[in-house]
């Protein structure tokens, strides 16, 4: 039996926990404002808000209800477009209307919910870039987006409290539009959200008692679930023993110890992207991860899930390979460690039993001699899978490469750990000559099966860009001509 709150109503259901939340919302609750556009998280028409208590606070995030297994709604607050409606239009809705941000209307509820995701995200500054990022998982085929950008700008303005002195000091991480006030409460007070939201924390506490949910030791492991319903939209997972680990708080944290970083497997991509500690080590992390999926998917997708999925273009896997990461797995009370480079054994095949749980991923923390670079080329740029993605991590002694790891995705059934190219780089200084020779070796290490000429060119270009980013000035365009 699953228990959760949908808008202002508690629901209990025996529906299969691996079925899709959007079907439950539309077919069982008859809430038709949430639309189905693609069932693969690529359009955002089904975007909803998911609220849960974390550290005594109610936090909301957007998610794609088409990809979300019902089991992950358990004990949470699910908000659909109907749940933000009041008797009058809300400021978010008014902004869209006033700026002509809706035409056919089919994508509109999704945009509204993503904009609410922006309003409710305490960790993000209320500026236009962040508002636009919040809707970057929503496709609109009518407006060309300019009117939606204007609406987003209007909302940003409405979120700034008019009184001087109450503005959030930029150097502080804001917790809401007003310091010290939870965004939800502020939004209720300012008529963005209906009053019933104020009672949600108490209601949630009743159905979701505090305390860490322990990870079970059996069942097919599902974390964010973003690939489960994609593979089986008809709910092939509707029967059988499913082990939902998304809520496993124990592994939803990033630890630093002994010069190493330990990332818990249920840490989401969004958690990574917004981690201030990690961003201190990887200054481009926020931009790099912006190229991965969309905000609602990043809110769902976990690090462990991305690895266990074994995709040949997994962005995090490419990055973690370049960091020479190690996994800690657990089954039946036993732990074991495996190097990530030994983990991928075939197309979506990994060195892991389906019931074996990835607990942690760890890697050496970069020091002042370490350089890291990630590149991804896709058809569109954002909300797109890589045509080729790659990452390189090196350690320098002076201007000589001492350690190197290089991984490339998109070239075959698994991500390639480019060991020969990395070995070649050891002891070398970065130069045009080094690039040319490294490229010849890299080209020998890959066997792209489709679009081979293009993919080979992308590997060459990405290798060039990695090396150039490590030693600007030491390498020039002539190397490519």
């Amino acid at each position, binding site marked *: 039996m699953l228990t959760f709150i949908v808008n202002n109503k508690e629901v209990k259901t025996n529906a299969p926990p691996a079925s899709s939340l959007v079907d439950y919302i539309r077919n069982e609750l008859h809430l038709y404002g949430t639309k189905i556009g693609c069932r693969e998280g690529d359009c955002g028409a089904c975007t909803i808000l998911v609220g849960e208590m974390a550290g005594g606070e109610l936090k909301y995030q957007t998610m794609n209800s088409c990809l979300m297994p019902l089991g992950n709604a358990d004990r949470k607050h699910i908000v659909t477009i109907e749940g933000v409606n009041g008797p009058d239009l809300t400021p978010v809705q008014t902004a869209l209307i006033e700026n002509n941000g809706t035409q056919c209307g089919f994508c509109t509820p999704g945009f509204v919910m993503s904009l609410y995701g922006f309003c409710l995200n305490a960790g993000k500054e209320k500026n236009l870039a962040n508002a636009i990022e919040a809707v970057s998982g929503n496709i609109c085929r009518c407006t060309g987006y300019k009117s939606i950008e204007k609406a987003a700008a209007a909302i940003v303005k409405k979120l700034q409290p008019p009184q001087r002195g109450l503005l959030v000091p930029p150097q502080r991480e804001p917790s809401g539009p007003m310091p010290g006030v939870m965004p939800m409460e502020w939004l209720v007070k300012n008529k963005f959200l209906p009053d019933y939201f104020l009672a949600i924390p108490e209601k949630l506490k009743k159905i979701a008692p505090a305390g860490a949910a322990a990870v079970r030791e059996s069942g097919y492991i599902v974390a964010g679930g973003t690939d489960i319903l994609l593979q089986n939209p*008809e709910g092939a997972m509707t029967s059988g023993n499913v082990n939902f680990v998304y809520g496993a708080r124990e592994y939803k944290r990033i630890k630093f110890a002994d010069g190493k970083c330990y990332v818990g497997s249920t840490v989401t991509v969004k958690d990574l992207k917004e981690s201030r500690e990690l961003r201190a080590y990887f200054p481009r992390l926020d931009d790099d991860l912006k190229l991965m999926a969309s905000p609602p998917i990043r809110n769902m997708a976990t690090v462990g899930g991305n690895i266990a999925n074994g995709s040949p273009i997994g962005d995090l896997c490419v990055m973690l390979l370049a960091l020479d990461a190690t996994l800690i797995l657990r089954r039946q009370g036993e732990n074991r460690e495996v190097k990530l480079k030994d983990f991928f054994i075939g197309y979506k095949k990994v060195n892991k039993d389906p019931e074996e749980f990835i607990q942690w991923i760890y890697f050496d923390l970069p020091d002042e001699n370490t350089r890291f670079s990630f590149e991804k080329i896709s058809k569109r740029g954002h909300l797109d899978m890589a045509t080729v993605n790659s990452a390189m991590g090196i350690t320098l002694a002076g201007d000589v490469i001492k350690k190197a790891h290089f991984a490339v995705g998109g070239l075959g059934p698994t991500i390639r750990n480019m060991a020969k190219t990395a070995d070649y780089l050891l002891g070398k200084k970065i130069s045009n000559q080094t690039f040319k020779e490294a490229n*010849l070796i890299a080209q020998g290490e890959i066997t792209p099966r489709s679009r081979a000429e293009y993919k080979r060119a992308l590997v060459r270009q990405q290798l060039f860009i990695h090396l150039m980013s490590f030693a600007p000035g030491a390498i020039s365009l002539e190397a490519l001509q």
Partner: protein
Amino acid sequence: MKNIDSRSHVRGESIYVNDIPVRQDTLFGVVLGSPVAHGKLHDIDFSEALKMDGVEAVISAKDITGENQIGSIIQDEELFADKEVHFVGMPVALVCAKTDAIARKALAKIKLDIEELRPILTAREAYAEKKFISPSRTFKIGSTDAMWEKCEHIIEGQAEMGGQEHVYLETQGAYAYMLENGSIKIHSATQATKHVQVGASVVLGIPMHKIEVDTNRIGGGFGGKEDQATHWGTLAALATNTLKKPLKLILSRADDFVMTGKRHPYSFDFKLGLDKNLKILCYQVEAFQNAGAAADLSPAIMERTLFHGTGSYHIPNAKITCHSCRTNLAPSTAMRGFGAPQAMFALEAAIMKAAATLNVSPLEIQKRNLLQESDRFPYGQVAENCNAGKCWDTAYKKFAVEKLKKEIAAFNKNNDHSKKGLSLFPLCFGISFTKTKLNQGRSLVHIYTDGSVSITTGVVEMGQGVNTKILQAAAKTLSISPRRFTIHSTNTTRIANASPTAASTGADLNGKATIMACAALLARLKDVACRELKGRDPDKIEIKDEIVFHRGKKTSLKWEKLILLADEARVSLSEHAHYATPEVHFNKATEKGHPFAYHVYGTAVTVVTVDCLRGTYEIDLVKCVHDFGTSINLDIDIGQAEGAIVQGIGLMTIEELLVDPKGKHVYDSLSSYKVPDIYFAPKTIEVVPLDSKPDKLALLGSKAVGEPPLMYGIGTYFAILMAMREFNPKMKLPLWAPLTHQKCLLSLYEGYGEALK
């Protein structure tokens, strides 16, 4: 006035077909499509599927009680494959089950015995094998043959343009149920209620009056639901009639992608002749249209390719030929622009190639050949109120093109890894259905006794804001508050024989009809008011802002009272009006006539930045001066223009369709077929209305807007090429849209791959 649907849109309360609460006992249909592109269908075995719990029936060609035929222009399209399959995804059977999920699972249990035949996939292949949809056609003006020798420069080449998937956010679908006495109601996501009605009538073998088609709104159409919504409405009706149960059929995105047709891919051979002053003397183009497996709207689309063969230019000697080629793709269909973007791309490609060959700026050639007042098009019509030059000059000045050029030159000098490029694109697009018969609109207006008004027209609202414009026109004509109106669903029982909502004509045709209906009602109400006010001349009565004026003086008679008086006097408060566009005609025998009510002009300036290390690009700005006539709703019109521009950019850049040698789409979902997202859209879009005259055939002078701005996207292609040439001046010009990241990178480093080997 804001779009009248926007309130329900932002609240998620707008109703699309899939949001209609289902009746008890409703079945759900899932279509089984052919897995092969071409083959003989020997047998379908559903026995295992029928054994599944919850599967009610499997319907196929043998269940058709009328004719197995849904072709609209040419009757060459089966609803269900019977003896042969002609494209991957061609409907073979419909599984009807208690849930969508059960129906989908049952698909796997159906066994098809198909003998595969060799598919034809490209237009040129079909041309070589003489597989045509309809006879080839040629438009001619002057004499190209005699003029080639007078040309200083002759440029020849090939251009290609791929198809485009509509990606309306709402997939195709229909919901059908029985009414009494054998009548059927179909809620259909269609741009053409009549097409669905005719399709169902023919397939079921029952008269049209027994089929009611209702369309409340659709979640985007872009042409994709003009002819191709018929299948699903007809299938739902057939299943409902066979099983006597309601049936809902909503295509999954995957099925929609495979089963429905797309914009036509085209291939062109062009030959362009210029004199020493860069005046175009001659242009000859042969277009090979990939029409797919059935006619659908291809003959009409071919026609528009011919009409727009010379673009926004005056070309004294032109010969434009188009071959509509039958292949084994899903029938190519209408999409915003309807054959015109392809024709315009071919001509711009020829101009670009000429400019590159002669080492001049393409702008020089473009500017010198723009259409002028009274220039004759190859189809006989002359350019009236021609704004081609005015748009170009205004854009050039307003958007400071000279300054942009200098900035770009400076940028390119200072940056090795990225380059900027600029293009201008002049637009001329004819408004009207090229099939004269379709240029008719209808409107039914009821005034209720409380003074509120209901309007139904033949137009389908799909986000283009047409209902808002119609409401504005009605409110203006009656001079009453917009709050008094509801625009109701498009329904075949209220508006019969409606033309499709297409060719950008919806507002003109149905708005004009609405004005006529309102004017007729107003005339009757003036009579009533005249009698009430004891006047003699109803012409001296006016209604202004709901108040009756007599001889210019305000009276105490107000709208609501006037309506009651009219009812009391037994005066009809309902009116149905019919509008047929005057002046338009076309003779297919001579290929001459006056097919368009008017033309829409514009010029777009585009600047892009190409990342020459990654082979990617960003669109910095698209700014255009566009001829809206005298817009009655700039909010809506600019929204249409911005959306069309971005869709057009997608067409020219990242939206790539590719079929494998077996005729299967390689990119067949939103995860692999990418349309512009918010980050891909140009950083700046500016749409400046041209100071233009109202056109009397446009709704209140407000020119049609749906399709024309899409073609500004063509400018992006050439801006990217210009930037790429800054990096690699020697590259061979790629004249094959879309200009994907792949093509961009490979052209930037042309020859490098060879050096590796």
